């Protein structure tokens, strides 16, 4: 991993203002931000480690623990809320057997909520990786999960 990391970071030597793009790039490659990687980012950019951690922990996008192969994001936007997002989340938690923020034991799914994915007219919806599943009912959630498992 170290080689990969230093190769990834090589164009950013001393580039302090590129911190957020760097964090995004590292996370895209590694799936999350391990402590070692953040220390390496601090060394490369010349920023204090505290600053790297401060910025990474401020933004919702960054994660510090490994994640499942797929992300399962339940939208909690206003339109989804009034159309029953709470029930969609509960059903997803039941179907996957985990609660918000956790990863399934087989490392397939990480369940998260998102403030809004901007598909409000098709509420309630979830985003699985980059695919949006729209106009859901709790019943459809288990069907979607079963369908994906069968693949």
């Amino acid at each position, binding site marked *: 991993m170290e080689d990969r990391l230093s190769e990834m970071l090589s164009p950013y030597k001393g580039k*302090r*203002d*590129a*911190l*957020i*793009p760097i*964090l*995004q790039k590292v996370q895209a490659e590694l799936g999350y931000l391990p402590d070692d990687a953040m220390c390496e980012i601090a060394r490369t950019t010349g920023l204090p480690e505290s600053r790297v951690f*401060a*910025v990474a922990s*401020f*933004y*919702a*996008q*960054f994660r510090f623990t490994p994640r499942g192969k797929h992300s399962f994001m339940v939208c*909690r*936007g*206003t*339109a*989804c*809320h*009034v*159309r029953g997002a709470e*029930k969609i989340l*509960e*059903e997803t938690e*039941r179907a996957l057997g985990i609660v918000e923020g956790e990863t399934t034991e087989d490392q397939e799914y990480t369940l998260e909520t*998102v*403030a*809004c*994915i*901007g*598909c*409000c*007219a*098709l*509420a309630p*919806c979830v985003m699985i990786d*980059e*695919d*949006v*599943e*729209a106009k859901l*009912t*709790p*019943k459809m959630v288990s069907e979607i999960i079963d369908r994906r498992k069968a693949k």
Partner: protein
Amino acid sequence: MTFAEIQEQAKKEWDELLNGQKPQIAVGTATCGRSAGAMAVVKAFEDGLAEKKVDASIREVGCIGPCYAEPLVNIDKPGKPTLCFKNVNPDMVTEIIDAYLLGDDPLPQYTLGTLGQGEIKGVTKILDTPSFKPQERRVFRLCGIIDPTNINHYIANQGYEGLHKALSTMTQQDVVDVMKASGLRGRGGGGFPAGRKWEAGLAAKGTPKYVVCNADEGDPGAFMDRAVIEGDPHSVLEGMIIAGYTIGAETGYIYVRAEYPLAIRRLERAIAQAHEKGFLGKNIMGTDFNFEIKIFPGAGAFVCGESTALTLSIEGKRGMPRVAPRPRTTEIGLYDKPTLLNNVKSFSSAPMIITKGAEWFASVGTEKSTGTAIFALTGKVNNCGLIEVPMGITLREIIYDIGGGVSDGGTFKAVQTGGPSGGCLPASLLDTPIDYDSLDEAGSIMGSGGMVVMDEKTCMVDVARYFLDFTVIESCGQCVPCRLGTKELLEVLKEICAGKGRKQDLDLLYELSLAIHAGSICGLGQTAANPVLTTLRYFMDEYEAHILEKRCPAKVCKSLISFVIQEDKCVGCGICAKSCPVNAISGEKKKVHVIDQSICVQCGVCQEKCPAKFSAVDCVSPRIKAEVPEKV
């Protein structure tokens, strides 16, 4: 190539496309279309056309607005107006090819209507329907019409004409004057006059200067910025380039949410194409003006919609608003340099203001709020989607005419505008005209344009709690009134929803709200209590029902409701018992089932699963007390 030559070439391509002998199929494949299955529809058309040897071309376009009818497919046959098919699925595609492309049957039952000149017998004209008639498409003029990945489509429709006009015939001050005369107010929600901002950007001392486009659309319930970028990305670029010329900047940033991957891809492609045509880069259109645009994918922080936080975020810092006395971003912004920061729709409006003039822009709208407003009309309304209307239209016209009224036969209760910083307005204010000042007076805000309709099944206390939940998570934590005040508000609201509210809580909510408003540093904090203040103002009866009667009128708050099986309706099929996650339901087959209230967690699965023909599970509030089982 000169601009005139580029334009001529583009117009030729566009004319051939529209007036050629081949039928044209346009499928809406913005994020909303895709989530409704548009990509499968594209595939079905490709396969179907190949199989039946039909010579027609397919193009992917953005969103024309009526999301409720997605996936949308527009078909242009030579000599006919555009026929718009709604809710298309792959099975319908075969039928459409056979009936309309090979034959001449327009399948009226599948259509939304026709667009453009001429008519097709038996099909309504879309622009004559109550849903479209009040609309005025300006920012959205090309969304859903052009292929957003083809710059020539934009150029053929007056694209980059504004930039050409500005660079070849106008001074920087001329552009400022036109922008000021247009009366355009910042479309991000604040409503600050755009022309005055551009003037301050021009006047600001210091170099380099920057142009920043705020596409960090974080309001839950708003997605128009995404639609504009996905459907017409060049309009945003052109507006930014004109702004760069006006204030003397050479670099622009688009701060766009990382949750919008398609929008980012469309922007990247548009930027590359603008470079190829010489609209970006060095010596733009043969002048000595240079301009570059970079994309900055935001990392997810609602507060970064605030201008000082956004610029700090681009610098690689925590997005925390600068502390008062805050300098104007036009003087001290990105990297402490003069920065012109506007919303997507403000930039996107600029090219047409330059091309068609300030008077054209101000020809619709009200005196103090000119032009059009874009709303994401969602929630409990029949026709969900993006709408563009002249400022000054009433809430009633939007919800009942354009939106087609409340969905599922519900009764209108409230409309929420402006997202977490806005408020909930009741039925008595339905005739309020939509403009910055009227909404402000009613206790809400225009905001970025989210408009969520709520019906009798929406609990207003729960809505206030929902928004505070959001604000608590998104508060940057810098100032005490916002960090702790919103948390306290949320705790009180949670108690009320849990049936533990006290009468004095109402005063506490009110006082806390005012203190948060008065003491917070930035707009996020200052407006954080708006959802509480407006629900207290207009829906006090619901708060009182929760506190005094322990009753949730909308039957939403779990601690105040019970599910019961109605004896006269239950046939004992046992579906509810099998699906109950906590095994609270018991009963013999073909006998009436009973829910044990001491075990029930009010998840509502039994009500959901009970077959519609029985509908035996009822929800009641206040709660039924759990019966203590008799000892046998």
